[in-house]
């Protein structure tokens, strides 16, 4: 059963969708889904909805929500910082505990949402587990990736692409237009300071980490994050799932659902909390 609702946190109204299983197992954790940044959220939404529904069918209560500045929630993307996204995630976790009547939470995040989930889990003593789909491990690389997207868009729009001009605009205006929304200088600076393997210190519960199929060398950041968790004693499962990014513009016209990634995630969840 699905129940949409709005809830308030920090004076801001956020949208959420609760997915209640018809047969919830005793003691299973609830899952809070942490969405990616910017337009990636909108483009990956079909997969995240599918994931929530499948997990609910498996017996896991799930809460999806929109951080401030996203989706149906209040505010604009420029209002968002890493701090607000973490705060909104904690608020969603509190709502999940109350609305879904669970005690423990698994944070499931995609891309930047997975990075937020990592930081949230560091502070959540009742965090049962983490599912990290293609997390942004090093924030400075992600900011570079966004600048490259902007360069490509400028080229496509027949504007002379220039990294120097973009950075100058960024410094002058305090924000940069990416895929129809504004990345603020503050958010970019916060992202650039993110280096997840050096940040994990407290979380010792099971972690599922995945990357889409690509060149082997591209897995290095994920492997370093996995090692950081394992050094803490957190059992970490690293899997390759999905053939291509399902959070990019091609998703507007072509529905691609990474079935193998969904299967691997569900199997991991069932193994840890349903004994199957």
């Amino acid at each position, binding site marked *: 059963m699905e129940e949409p609702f709005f809830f308030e946190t920090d004076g801001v109204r956020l949208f959420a969708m609760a997915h209640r299983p018809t047969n919830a197992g005793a003691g299973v954790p609830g899952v809070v889904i942490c969405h990616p940044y910017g337009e990636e959220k909108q483009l990956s939404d079909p997969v995240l909805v599918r994931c929530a529904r499948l997990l609910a069918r498996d017996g896991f209560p799930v809460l999806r929500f929109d951080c401030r500045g996203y*989706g149906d929630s209040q505010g604009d993307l420029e209002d968002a910082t890493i701090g607000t996204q973490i705060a909104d995630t904690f608020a969603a976790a509190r709502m999940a505990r109350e609305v879904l009547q669970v005690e423990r939470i698994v944070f499931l995040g995609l891309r930047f949402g997975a990075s937020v989930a990592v930081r949230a889990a560091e502070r959540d003593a009742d965090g049962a587990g983490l599912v990290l789909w293609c997390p942004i491990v090093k924030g400075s690389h992600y900011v570079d990736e966004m600048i490259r997207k902007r360069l490509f868009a400028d080229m496509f729009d027949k504007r002379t692409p220039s990294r120097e001009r973009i950075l100058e605009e960024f410094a002058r205006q305090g924000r940069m237009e990416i895929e129809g929304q504004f990345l603020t200088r503050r958010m970019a600076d916060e992202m650039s300071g993110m280096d997840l393997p050096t940040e994990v210190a407290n979380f010792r519960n099971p972690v599922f980490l995945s990357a889409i199929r690509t060149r082997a060398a591209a897995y290095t950041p994920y492997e370093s994050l996995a090692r950081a968790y394992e050094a803490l004693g957190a059992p970490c499962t690293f899997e390759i799932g999905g053939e291509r990014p399902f959070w990019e513009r091609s998703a507007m016209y072509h529905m691609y659902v990474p079935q193998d990634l969904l299967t691997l995630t569900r199997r991991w969840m069932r193994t840890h909390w349903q004994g199957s």
Partner: protein
Amino acid sequence: MDANALARVVRGPAEERPLYVDHHGEKLFGILHEPEKRHDDVALLFSSSGLQNRVGPHRMYVQAARRFSQLGLTALRLDLPGVGDSVERELAGDFDHHDPASVVDAIEFLIANHDVRRVVLVGLCSGARVAIKAAARHPRVDAVIAWSMPIISGAVDMPVAEGGGAYMGRTMARAQLREWAPKLANPAAWYRYLRSEKTLTEGWDMMRRALSGLLPEPLRQKSSRQTDFLSSLDSYVASGRKMLCVYGGDDDMVRTEFGERYPEIAAHRSSTCDYLLVPNGDHTYTRVAASEEVIARTSDWLARHYLG
């Protein structure tokens, strides 16, 4: 939910709340924007664009609905079947995969439950196409706001319905053939093509569709979905009901195709259908200035027609 949870769960302010619309026993999800001071008996209904949910590309539907509700207009942003939080359904992935019957049910829902007598349908791209088809089927649709509505049925390699291929007009056909011409005489291009997953039969089908675009309109190959759309659009335009067509200045092919078929509208010579060109606008008005202009000028159009 227990009482403590309810205390913190906000029903939604008077302005925005979630709801479900029944569609043949299945549920369609939407967010209703109800203004504090509602003006008249008109409501807007946003139809899904492609595979995108009720939020729209870069939140354009959210921004627009909030803007329009500030004018005093009720607005419902709806997830059509197969999209967002509505019932799951496999979609064909073409411009006509949305079922106008679902939009008609939402129109009936607004009329039955929200004191609405006139509905304005809003859609971007394939959302505009399904809006037109629904408008042709329901007399209470007072206006259609069509953002980047494609007249052709899709790119030459988009999914093909039974009975015919992707339909294109003369402008698109010429552009497609101009793009291919250098490659036809290039052995390297042939090598790349043969190494791709595409077959020679598929290549010939694409060529045939493009060539048919050069034929006179009645002789062009059309799938039934394209025939249905064009007849709906022709009958809607002939009905004398209002329409606002918005195109991006950088969305060359799509706006040119529209102008080719409806030159009177594109030349601002229609008494009921308005045409608006947004400079620097691509197909989904990705640039913030472009989407803001679309919303602002659509808002002005609504104010002129419904708040005057």
